[in-house]
C-alpha cells in the first residue's frame, strides 16, 4: 500500500511511525464513476477521502443553481471537516472516474486525539496551518540562513613563512600579499603572527628587526573544521576575543577565516550595498551600487529569508537609492521646496523584483523653477538606466501630469475621488499608497491630511472605490482544470483583492500607513478587523507573493533576454501538493474577505 498512499504528504507526515502504520492498516479503496456522489450534503461521510486518481468537485445545490467551491485532484484530501462534524454541508461528486483511499472517521478521531500537530492541521485556520508547514519545510526559514558552512564563506589562503624569517621580511611579505597575519612554520607546527604581535614585539619589547618571527608567534591556534557552521566560528571568535580562526581539515590546513569576512557574509552584502549607496558621490557610483541589489535579492530568496523581511529590506534600499539620486540631481536650493513621492507597490514597500517606477513630485504653491521639468526628465531617465523600468502608464515625474503644486495635487485627488471612471480610480488607488522619500515631506503631508479629511463619511465614494476589489473572480475552481489551463493570474485572483480591499478599509479609517501588513495591523488595532482574520489575510498575501516570486525568478532565468512577459502567472503544475493545498486555502480566505467587503460596502456582488 505504501507506494499508492503518500505518507510524506502533510498532514500525514505529522504522524508518528506507529500512527502512520495505523493509518495504513485502516485505509480502504473506493471506486467512483463519473458523476457519482461520493459524499452527499446532509449525510455523514464514512471518513476522510484521499484521492489516488481522479477529480472531485465540492459543490452546493443542484443543476443550474449549482455553486462549485473547489476541485480536488490527485493526492488531495477532502471530507475531513465533514466527517469530524458528522454531517457534510456540501456535495462531493466525482468529475471523472475516481479512486480514493478512505480513512474511517473513527480512526481520524483517534489520531486527532493522540496527535496534537495533526489535530491542529485538521482543525485550525490557515495561518496556523502555514506556520506548521513552515516549521516542517526545513529550508524555508531564517535558520537555514544561519546554517551556512564555513567552507561557503571566504576562506583565505594563508601566508606561510619558514622559521628563521626576520620580522622585517615577514612584515614586507604581509604588505606585498595584503595579508594582515602570517603563519610561521616551526618544525611541524604553525604559529600565528598578527599585525598586533609585530607592533608589540618591535615597539613595546624593542626587539631588533632581524629577530626570528617564529619567536613571537603564538602556537595555540584556534582551529575550525570546514564542515562546521560559520555561526560557530563567529561564536568562537567572540568568546576567545580573536579575529581569525585557522580552518583545518583533519591535519591539512585549508586556510584562514577572518571576522570581517564572517560578518559581511551574514549581512549578505546588504550592509555593503547600503554603505555604497550612502557614499556614492556620483551617478556612476550610485548606479554600480544599485546593480548589486539584484544579486542581493536572489541571495536572500535562495537562502529562504522570510518574504516580508526581504520586502522591507528592499523597500529601504530602493528608497535610499531614489533619495540619493534626488540629492545628486536636484539643486540643493530647490530641495526644501519640493517633495518626491513614490506610489503604488513602491509606496507600500511591497515590491520585490524591480517593478515599474511610479513616482510623482509635489512642489510648493507658487514655486518658480524654470528647469524643473527638464530636471525631472533627467531624473526618470537615470532611474531607467539603473534598471527601474519605466511605468507603462507613464506615472512618473517625466510626465508633467505627475509634477504638481500642493494645490493642484489636492485638486487632482479630489477630482479622481469624484469620478467613477476606471482610470481615475486607478490613479487614486496608486496615489493613496504614496510615501515621501526625498525633499520636504511637509508638502506631501499637507495634501494627504486634507484629502483624508475630505473623504470622511463619504460612503458613496468608498462603496465605489471598494468595487474594484471584488471585480475579478477568485480562481478556486481552476484547480480542477489543471490539465487544460494549469495556470492562474495571482495578481487578479489573490493579491489585488487583498491589497485594494485593505487599502479601502485603511483609507476609510484614515490610517496613515501604506504598507498592507501595517495597514492590516492598524485595522486590527482599531477593531475593524478580527485579529484572526487579519493574520490569515497577511499570511495569504505572503504566500501569493512568495509563490509568484519563485516562479518569476525561474522564468527570468529560463528566458534568453532575462525578461518575464507574464510576471503574475502561477503555473500550477510547478507547485507541489503542499503548496497547492496552501494556495487553495489562501484563495478561500480571499473569497471570504471579498464577501466581507461586499457586505460592508453594499456591493451586492
Amino acid at each position, binding site marked *: 500500500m505504501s507506494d499508492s498512499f503518500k505518507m510524506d504528504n502533510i498532514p500525514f507526515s505529522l504522524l508518528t511511525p506507529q500512527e502512520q502504520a495505523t493509518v495504513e492498516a485502516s485505509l480502504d479503496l473506493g471506486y467512483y464513476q463519473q458523476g457519482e456522489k461520493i459524499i452527499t450534503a446532509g449525510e455523514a461521510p464514512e471518513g476522510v477521502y484521499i484521492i489516488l486518481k481522479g477529480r472531485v468537485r465540492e459543490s452546493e445545490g443542484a443543476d443550474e443553481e449549482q455553486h462549485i467551491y473547489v476541485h480536488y485532484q490527485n493526492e488531495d484530501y477532502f471530507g475531513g471537516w465533514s466527517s469530524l462534524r458528522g454531517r457534510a454541508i456540501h456535495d462531493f461528486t466525482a468529475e471523472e*472516474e475516481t*479512486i480514493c483511499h478512505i480513512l474511517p472517521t473513527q480512526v481520524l478521531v483517534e489520531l486527532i486525539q493522540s496527535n496534537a500537530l495533526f489535530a491542529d492541521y485538521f482543525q485550525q485556520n490557515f495561518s496556523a496551518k502555514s506556520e506548521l508547514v513552515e516549521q516542517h519545510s526545513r529550508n524555508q526559514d531564517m535558520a537555514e540562513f544561519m546554517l551556512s558552512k564555513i567552507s561557503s564563506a571566504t576562506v583565505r589562503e594563508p601566508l606561510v613563512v619558514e622559521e628563521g624569517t626576520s620580522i622585517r621580511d615577514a612584515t614586507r611579505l604581509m604588505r606585498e600579499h595584503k595579508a594582515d597575519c602570517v603563519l610561521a612554520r616551526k618544525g611541524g607546527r604553525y604559529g600565528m603572527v598578527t599585525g598586533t604581535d609585530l607592533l608589540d614585539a618591535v615597539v613595546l619589547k624593542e626587539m631588533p628587526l632581524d629577530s626570528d618571527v617564529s619567536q613571537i608567534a603564538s602556537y595555540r591556534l584556534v582551529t575550525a573544521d570546514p564542515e562546521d557552521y560559520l555561526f560557530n566560528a563567529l561564536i568562537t571568535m567572540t568568546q576567545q576575543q580573536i579575529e581569525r580562526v585557522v580552518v583545518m581539515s583533519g591535519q591539512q590546513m585549508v586556510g584562514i577565516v577572518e571576522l570581517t569576512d564572517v560578518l559581511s557574509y551574514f549581512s549578505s552584502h546588504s550592509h555593503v550595498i547600503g554603505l555604497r549607496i550612502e557614499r556614492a558621490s556620483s551617478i556612476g557610483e550610485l548606479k554600480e551600487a544599485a546593480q548589486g541589489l539584484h544579486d542581493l535579492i536572489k541571495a536572500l530568496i535562495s537562502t529562504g529569508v522570510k518574504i516580508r523581511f526581504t520586502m522591507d529590506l528592499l523597500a529601504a534600499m530602493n528608497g535610499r537609492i531614489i533619495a540619493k539620486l534626488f540629492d545628486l540631481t536636484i539643486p540643493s536650493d530647490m530641495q526644501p521646496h519640493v517633495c518626491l513621492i513614490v506610489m503604488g507597490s513602491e509606496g507600500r514597500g511591497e515590491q520585490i523584483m524591480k517593478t515599474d517606477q511610479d513616482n510623482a513630485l509635489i512642489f510648493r504653491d507658487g514655486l518658480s523653477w524654470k528647469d524643473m521639468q527638464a530636471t525631472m526628465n533627467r531624473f526618470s531617465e537615470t532611474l531607467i538606466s539603473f534598471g527601474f523600468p519605466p511605468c507603462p502608464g507613464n506615472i512618473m515625474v517625466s510626465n508633467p501630469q505627475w509634477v504638481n503644486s500642493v494645490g493642484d495635487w489636492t485638486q487632482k485627488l479630489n477630482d479622481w475621488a469624484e469620478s467613477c471612471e476606471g482610470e481615475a480610480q486607478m490613479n487614486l488607488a496608486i496615489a493613496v499608497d504614496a510615501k515621501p522619500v526625498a525633499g520636504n515631506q511637509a508638502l506631501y503631508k499637507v495634501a494627504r491630511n486634507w484629502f483624508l479629511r475630505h473623504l470622511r463619511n463619504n460612503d458613496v465614494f468608498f462603496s465605489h472605490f471598494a468595487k474594484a476589489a471584488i471585480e475579478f473572480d477568485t480562481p478556486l475552481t481552476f484547480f480542477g482544470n489543471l490539465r487544460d489551463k494549469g495556470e492562474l493570474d495571482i495578481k487578479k485572483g489573490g493579491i489585488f483583492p487583498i491589497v485594494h480591499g485593505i487599502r479601502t478599509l485603511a483609507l476609510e479609517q484614515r490610517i496613515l500607513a501604506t504598507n498592507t501588513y501595517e495597514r492590516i495591523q492598524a485595522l486590527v488595532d482599531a477593531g475593524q478587523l478580527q485579529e484572526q482574520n487579519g493574520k490569515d489575510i497577511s499570511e495569504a498575501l505572503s504566500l501569493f507573493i512568495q509563490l509568484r516570486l519563485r516562479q518569476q525568478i525561474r522564468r527570468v532565468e529560463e528566458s534568453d533576454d532575462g525578461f518575464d512577459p507574464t510576471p503574475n502567472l502561477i503555473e500550477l503544475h510547478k507547485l507541489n501538493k503542499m503548496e497547492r493545498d496552501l494556495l487553495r486555502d489562501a484563495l478561500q480566505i480571499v473569497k471570504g474577505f471579498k464577501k466581507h467587503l461586499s457586505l460592508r460596502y453594499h456591493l451586492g456582488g
Partner: protein
Amino acid sequence: MIIPRTIRRLQERRVHKNGPWAELFESYSGDEVVSLDCETTSLDVSKAEILSIGAVRIKGQKVKTSDRLDIRLKPPASLTGESIKVHKIRATDLSDGIELDEALDKLLAFIGNRPILGYYVNYDIRMIDKFLRPKYGFGLPNKSIELSHVYHDIIKWKHVGGDVDLRFDTIASKLDIPIIQRHTALGDAITVALMYVRLKHGQAPTSTH
C-alpha cells in the same frame, strides 16, 4: 481441466458435508468477492513453491484494503535465481515468514465460501490446492472469477478483429488503473480488485487500442 475439477469438487463436497470445513462448501449468498494472488518460485505447478499470498476483500464498489491478508512463508528450498528475478523476493526477505500450514488456515478463514477473483486465477487455485489437498483432503471449492475473462467479455464487443490483448499491464492501462506494487502478492491482488470494481461498476473502456 475444468470438468475433472467440477466432478472432484462434488465428490469432496459430499465427503466434507458434515466435517469441520462444511461451511466452505455451502454456496455463497453475500456480495463480497476475495481477490487473491500468490507469488511462487516457478510457473510450473508441479515444481513451484508458494512464497507469499495476498488477498483482499471486495464489497460493492469498495476494495477493503483495511481487511486484507498479507502472508509471507518460510523460504522454500527451491528458491532459486530464476524466480528471484521475477518477483525480487530473496530468502532473506522471507526470514520472518510463517509455516505453510498456518498460512493455509489463515487463508481458508479469510476466504470462507466467497468467490475467488484473480488474474489467471486457476493457476493460483491449483497452487493452493496442491498443498491443501494432502493435508485437508480437498481443494478450494470456491467459485472462481477470472479477471481476464471479465475484461474480455466486456471488451470484445467493442473490439474489431484480432485478439484482445490480455496482458496484465495492458488491462491496467486500458482501464486507467494505477498498478499498485507490481509483483507483490498483496499489490497485485489490490490492483486486480480495482480492475474488477472498475469493470463491474464503471463504464466500458472506450479505447481498446
